[in-house]
């Protein structure tokens, strides 16, 4: 490992350690805000893991997130916590494999619509089941997890997402996905099993989302399908990832932080016009910064570099 890499690794480890100390200094409101940011960091980065290189825009984020939350609602009081998380992970992985195998032959707008439909379908199925079988729409989540523990679990999950993302990027799978994103026909003709590559990564990404939902579930003492499968979550994740920039693994973080704060502000000040405001924010971002904040910074660096080169 070169000296520069060592410095980067140490700096990142220091950052994680600092972030782990947040609950000891933050008050209740700040901690809840930090949890919100951490949750969206996991979701948006997991989203980018798959959608960034392949450019397959998925609106199924909340389907997996909600399934994680429901796993906790159903099993949280029955089983030990690590086991509940493990089961949520397995369910998310299996379901995403199934979804992936049946849908990743679709591309472009068809895939977008399908994923959106999937999230709604799961919500309707859960609603139907609760109404007709359990005969109560809502569920209470009583598990012995403190707010601080939720934060730490999300932090650990975020670290896991980043490490897996980094490993994938350096692997052949990472290159395969970039080739697919550029030109799927070329990908097939250089020997890439495109379906397999997409399904595997989709499942990875979705499993992280499911885990985030499971970890977040104790935040609500009461959940029903409208809360757990709220489609706004999928859109917010998408917009955060786009604002940050999806061509870098760390990109989405730059979108998550400002937007999580903005949404918090809008919810507090304009609770009745929240959706309109989010819509406007979405339009502005797509029009004004199509390559995201990271893209802007890199663009500026490049022009600066060229300017220096021209002078020299």
């Amino acid at each position: 490992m070169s000296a520069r890499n060592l410095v980067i690794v140490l700096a990142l480890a220091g950052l994680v350690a600092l972030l782990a100390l947040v609950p000891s200094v933050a008050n209740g409101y700040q901690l809840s805000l930090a949890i919100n940011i951490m949750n969206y960091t996991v979701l948006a980065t997991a989203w980018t893991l798959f959608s960034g290189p392949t450019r397959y825009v998925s609106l199924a984020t909340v389907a997996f997130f909600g399934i994680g939350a429901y796993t906790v609602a159903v099993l949280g009081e029955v089983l030990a916590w690590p086991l509940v998380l493990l089961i949520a992970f397995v369910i998310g992985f299996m379901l995403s494999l199934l979804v992936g195998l049946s849908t990743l032959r679709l591309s472009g707008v068809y895939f977008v619509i399908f994923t959106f439909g999937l999230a709604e379908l799961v919500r309707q199925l859960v609603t139907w089941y609760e109404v007709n079988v359990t005969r109560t729409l809502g569920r209470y989540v009583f598990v012995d997890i403190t707010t601080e523990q939720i934060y730490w679990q999300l932090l650990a999950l975020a670290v896991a997402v980043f490490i897996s993302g980094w490993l994938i990027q350096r692997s052949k799978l990472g290159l395969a996905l970039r080739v697919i994103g550029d030109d799927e026909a070329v990908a097939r003709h250089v020997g890439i099993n495109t379906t397999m590559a997409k399904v595997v990564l989709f499942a990875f990404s979705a499993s992280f989302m499911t885990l985030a939902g499971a970890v977040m579930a104790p935040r609500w003492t009461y959940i029903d399908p409208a809360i757990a499968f709220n489609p706004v979550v999928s859109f917010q994740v998408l917009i955060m990832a786009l604002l940050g920039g999806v061509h870098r693994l760390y990109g989405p973080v730059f979108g998550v932080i400002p937007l999580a704060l903005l949404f918090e502000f809008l919810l507090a000040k304009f609770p009745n016009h929240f959706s309109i405001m989010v819509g406007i924010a979405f339009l502005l971002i797509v029009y004004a910064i199509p390559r995201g904040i990271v893209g802007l910074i890199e663009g500026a660096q490049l022009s600066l570099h060229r300017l220096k080169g021209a002078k020299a």
Partner: protein
Amino acid sequence: MSAPLLSISGLTRRFGGLVAVDGVALEVRPGEIVGLLGPNGSGKTTVLNLISGALKSDGGSIQLRGRALEKLPAYRIAREGVARTFQLVRVLGSMTCKENVIAGLAFGPKSRWGEEASLAAHQLLVRVGLASRANVMTSELTYIDQKRLELARALAMQPELLLLDEWLAGLNPTELRDGIELIRSLRAEGRTILMVEHVMDAIRSLCDRCYVMNAGRKIAEGTPKDVLADPEVIRAYLGDADA
């Protein structure tokens, strides 16, 4: 005469009512450069698409060293040892030249990765004359350089059979001369090539044998000199003398 590397028989593909490829048979022997000619719309590119698995055939057989290819998906055919370039050049736009070549090295039958792939990619870029452009984004390349890069990516797969689809089309005279030289140098390496081409100079100077197609059928085969003198071939290209 050595056993054929590629042997195709009865190959058929329909698009709706149109029979784009109609019972075509052809053979390519190891080390040969074989041309596939014919007027526009005669089904040449469709034949390449069928061999490489971009399209599925409606009938007939395609064998590479006796292994059946016609039922395999494109990525498996690539791993069996068939590489191709595209009629409309296709480079990977978000990557550098070197990364484009590594894409060809990493997933083929003799997969290479890491330092080894990096070295091999550099050698291939030298081979096609792009050594100085290794870290340039492909979007900044000229047309001929994009074609060179596409060739390097195909060669990276160390294919047993290389399919070139009008690789020389759209080049100016100087570029064309360089392009022909490049393909000739591939023959010297012992590569086996099946090329769809319109540029007659290239066909005469490069091809050992040619097949000529018209309206989905094979109408002639033989040396370039013979087929280009064949009355039916002339009729296919130019129409009847008294028309």
